[in-house]
């Protein structure tokens, strides 16, 4: 076995071992900080391995290694594989996951310093479990293992959103996220079934007809919509912000929600055959991007802004993938993972400092949290697509691809989103770091080194990853040539315009009518319209058949049973009357029957 594969297996074994260790030895878990440090060391090892693998693949981008064993034998033919598959895509994703996970774990050590040791140990147990699950997903040799990892990260997401489970809102949000994504995952299961029936396996490049590919891709996309928070299944993501902020950074911004995008990239042979599903993806992604960006402009909770922004950016990726730009979607996933993790962690540092998520408790924090502010601003600029920063390059790839696909609606929506993104991020920066200092902001304290270091690490790819787009593209085996077209310039103009407008409105207080214009949007966005919609969908679609079934069970099935029981009792009581206990009554029956037999039996 090649050492590369051995190392890849270690990225699974180490976090899994940590989880088991913490799970089986509660003494260790309850020590809190030592457990946390152990978990971080494990994550560091994983990061080192991932870095080594990535470096190897940069030198030899087209190599593909796999070790897997077959299982799920059905009719003598093995269906699924379990193992690791290494190629340019999985290795780069592994590095993204490992980097962000390492940063987040390190950051959590500072962020959760007030947590009791028991809770801290529990948190890092979940973190290790997440790292294992995500690696399992990323390194999957086929869709079946990806599905297992997919469900495991879903479970970890549930556990981490509900980390502060005594808080009712957190418990509710955890359940909501779980239920919504599980609902969507039914699509993945069905898709896997169809794929297994059609091709006899779960391979990425299973030989299937275009019609079957449409069905499979459509079903898989339902799961993607749930996991990657696409409209109308995005409802769980804003609520998921009830979890600790580092969790939001890792699971609900950088890696787990991107698993849907990763699935599409991996299963590209299936999706590229499914033309109609891809077209739908382009539309839906663009719509989600615009829709979430509009909502993000009116949020007053810094995490909610970032959550809707994540939704919006995932829409970007989906739209790009739908338009056929595998590289664009995947590259944006990567850059987004870094800058959104950076934004979340910086926001976490702010929240940690002021003990609140609300803008009203912030403001003017630039003086207090200089480094955090700089990190956040760079992240925002990258997200807003300012030329030179990572986000600009990846976003440009998607816009070009959508432009080439000729989908004008999607292109328009995405360009508008680009402007809006710049606008709402400027608003966030202004409300958080500039302007009047609030009461709680005056007592803000700076982050410790365990919180600054991750920000510093993430700042590097946030700024510089775009310049590495060329080598990155080679991992895909695709040429990359940077060129600026009309679309690119438009996007730059819109981005800069958005920043200027945002600063004008929120920084200088000009154009005061604009925020008032957003009022109805805010009301609508903060109301529970979407939840109620789903509620009624559930009631109509889910409860009506259930009620019918319950009625059938209660009155038809049970009724039949009760009727039979009643009949037996009544007949028994009637029959009992026949038993008089009088011998002569029985004799009447004997002789009467004998007479009848003699009269009618046998003689004709």
């Amino acid at each position: 076995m090649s050492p590369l594969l051995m190392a890849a297996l270690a990225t699974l074994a180490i976090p899994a071992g940590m989880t088991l260790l913490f799970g089986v030895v509660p003494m260790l878990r309850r020590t809190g900080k030592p457990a946390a440090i152990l978990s971080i060391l494990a994550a560091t090892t994983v990061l080192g391995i991932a870095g080594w693998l990535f470096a190897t693949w940069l030198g030899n981008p087209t190599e593909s290694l796999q070790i897997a064993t077959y299982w799920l034998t059905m009719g003598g033919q093995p269906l699924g594989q379990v193992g690791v598959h290494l190629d340019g895509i999985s290795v780069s994703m592994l590095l993204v996951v490992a980097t962000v996970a390492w940063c987040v774990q390190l950051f959590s050590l500072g962020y959760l310093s007030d947590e009791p040791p028991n809770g801290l140990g529990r948190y890092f147990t979940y973190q290790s479990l997440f790292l294992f699950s995500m690696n399992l997903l990323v390194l999957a040799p086929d869709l079946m293992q990806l599905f297992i990892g997919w469900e495991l990260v879903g479970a970890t997401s549930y556990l981490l959103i509900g980390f502060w489970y005594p808080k009712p809102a957190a418990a509710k949000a955890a359940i909501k996220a779980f239920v919504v994504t599980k609902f969507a995952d039914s699509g993945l299961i069905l898709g896997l079934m169809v794929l297994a029936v059609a091709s006899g396996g779960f391979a990425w490049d299973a030989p299937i007809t275009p019609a079957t590919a449409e069905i499979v891709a459509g079903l898989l996309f339902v799961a993607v919509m749930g996991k990657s928070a696409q409209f109308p299944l995005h409802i769980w993501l804003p609520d998921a912000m009830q979890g600790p902020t580092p969790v939001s950074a890792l699971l609900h911004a950088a890696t787990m929600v991107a698993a849907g995008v990763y699935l599409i990239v991996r299963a590209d042979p299936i999706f590229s055959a499914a033309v109609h599903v891809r077209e739908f993806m382009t539309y839906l992604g663009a719509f989600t991007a615009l829709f979430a960006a509009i909502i993000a402009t009116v949020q007053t909770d810094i995490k909610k802004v970032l959550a809707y922004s994540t939704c919006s950016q995932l829409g970007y990726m989906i739209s790009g993938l739908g338009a056929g730009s595998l590289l664009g979607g995947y590259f944006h996933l990567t850059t987004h993972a870094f800058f959104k993790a950076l934004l979340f962690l910086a926001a976490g540092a702010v929240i940690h400092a002021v003990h609140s998520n609300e803008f009203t408790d912030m403001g003017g924090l630039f003086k207090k949290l200089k480094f955090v502010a700089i990190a956040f601003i760079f992240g925002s600029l990258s997200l807003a697509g300012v030329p030179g920063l990572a986000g600009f390059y990846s976003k440009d790839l998607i816009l070009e691809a959508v432009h080439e696909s000729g989908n004008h609606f999607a292109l328009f929506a995405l360009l508008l989103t680009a402007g809006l993104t710049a606008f709402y991020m400027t608003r966030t920066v202004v409300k958080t770091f500039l302007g009047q200092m609030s009461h709680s902001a005056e007592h803000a304290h700076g982050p410790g080194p365990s919180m600054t270091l991750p920000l510093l690490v993430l700042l590097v790819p946030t700024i510089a990853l775009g310049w590495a787009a060329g080598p990155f593209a080679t991992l895909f085996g695709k040429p990359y040539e940077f060129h600026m077209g009309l679309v690119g310039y438009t996007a730059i103009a819109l981005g800069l315009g958005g920043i200027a407008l945002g600063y004008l409105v929120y920084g200088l207080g000009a154009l005061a009518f604009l925020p008032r214009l957003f009022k109805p949007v805010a009301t609508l966005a903060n109301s529970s319209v979407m939840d109620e919609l789903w509620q009624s969908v559930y009631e109509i679609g889910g409860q009506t058949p259930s009620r019918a079934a319950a009625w059938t069970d209660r009155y038809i099935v049970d009724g039949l049973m009760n009727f039979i029981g009643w009949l037996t009792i009544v007949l028994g009581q009637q029959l009992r009357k026949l038993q008089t206990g009088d011998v002569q009554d029985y004799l009447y029956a004997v002789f009467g029957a004998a007479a009848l037999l003699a009269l009618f039996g046998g003689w004709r």
Partner: protein
Amino acid sequence: MTAILLIASALFCAGVFGLLTQKHAIGVMIAIEVMINAANLIFVGLGQHKGAAVGQSFALFTIAIAVAEVVVGLAIVLLLYRSRGDVQVDEAREMRQ
């Protein structure tokens, strides 16, 4: 031979009538004896008609069994009389409960 069967049938039905109407236990036993006699009549009559010894043999067995039945039956009647004070068969229906 038809005559024997018809007479035996008449005898048997007289027994049936008695069996169904008697309230007294000994009356019931009388009726049973009449019925057994009807059966014996057929055994003997048909045996003789066919010239087979089996008819009389079984008639003999039946008579012996009937005697045994009367003996045991009377013992039961006596027991019934002692425990209940009367021997009306329609009153003895505890089995019903």
